[in-house]
């Protein structure tokens, strides 16, 4: 199982808001595909999937605030 974590986005940026999951729980996703879009400041950041597999769970929903390093979901 691979955890989906919010990576470092830049100096002094400690959090972001989940704005859009490109996949639903249960769907297959390939490593490198856009998985979740995050909004911070005047930017949206598209996090690529860290692994190929099934999106097992989504812990942070659209509109939720997440901190750098926080687990937002998992791929198995």
């Amino acid at each position: 199982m691979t955890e989906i974590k919010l990576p470092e986005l830049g100096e002094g940026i400690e959090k972001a808001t989940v704005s859009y999951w490109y996949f639903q729980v249960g769907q297959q996703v390939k490593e490198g595909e856009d998985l979740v879009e995050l909004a911070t400041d005047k930017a949206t950041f598209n996090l690529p999937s860290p692994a190929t597999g099934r999106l097992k769970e989504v812990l942070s929903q659209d509109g939720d605030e997440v901190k750098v390093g926080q687990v937002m979901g998992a791929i198995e």
Partner: protein
Amino acid sequence: MTQSLLTQPYQRGSPKLHEKSIRCRLIDLGLIDYGASFSLQKELLASIKNKTSLDALIFCEHPHTFTLGRLSKKDNILCGEEGIKKRGISVNRVDRGGEVTYHGPGQLVVYPIFNLSHYKKDLKFYLDTLENVIIATLLKCNVHAEKRPSFRGAWIDGKKIASIGIAVHHWITCHGLALNVNTDLSYFSMIRPCGLDITMTSIESVLGNTNDISKVKQVMLDNFVKSFNLEIMEGGK
């Protein structure tokens, strides 16, 4: 703020940041429909990701358009469907950060499609550098703008003259900035720009005369070249 401070290259991080120039295509689209320019951005982004294109710098103007960021609230458009139709404005929801904004003739729009892996994978670095480019460009046009803490863009006496909104895929940027040169500012009163109760301004309003947008474009290009250490390849791939 002095010009030397504004135009200084980025100091933090790797000292190698500006040693090697980055080859970049210059694409000047003139007046173009928002949707067409957006499709081009997406195509370029995919090509840059596949390493079949150089980074690109797109300059353009749009016909009257409102765009809403992913998290924008529709009630920040104040005029209703009828007002939008009456003034021939198209409305687009897009995948950038930020709230609602207006694009129209007389506004210089720049979409840098840059691979931030060449510089620094840091959204703050990129947004800060875009602001520096705008402020240095305005200074060269005799307009003294400044940054405002917590409010991105460029400001003059509490009025906003330029806006920023970007999206990043695989650390490659799209969307960008919009600078009001000779913009008809009345369109901004139909929205809450950036979701805020603010007044917009333009170079024309500040200086009291109409300005040649192509000259502002050239100054902006020079500042992009300086700040991002670009080697411009006109029409290159």
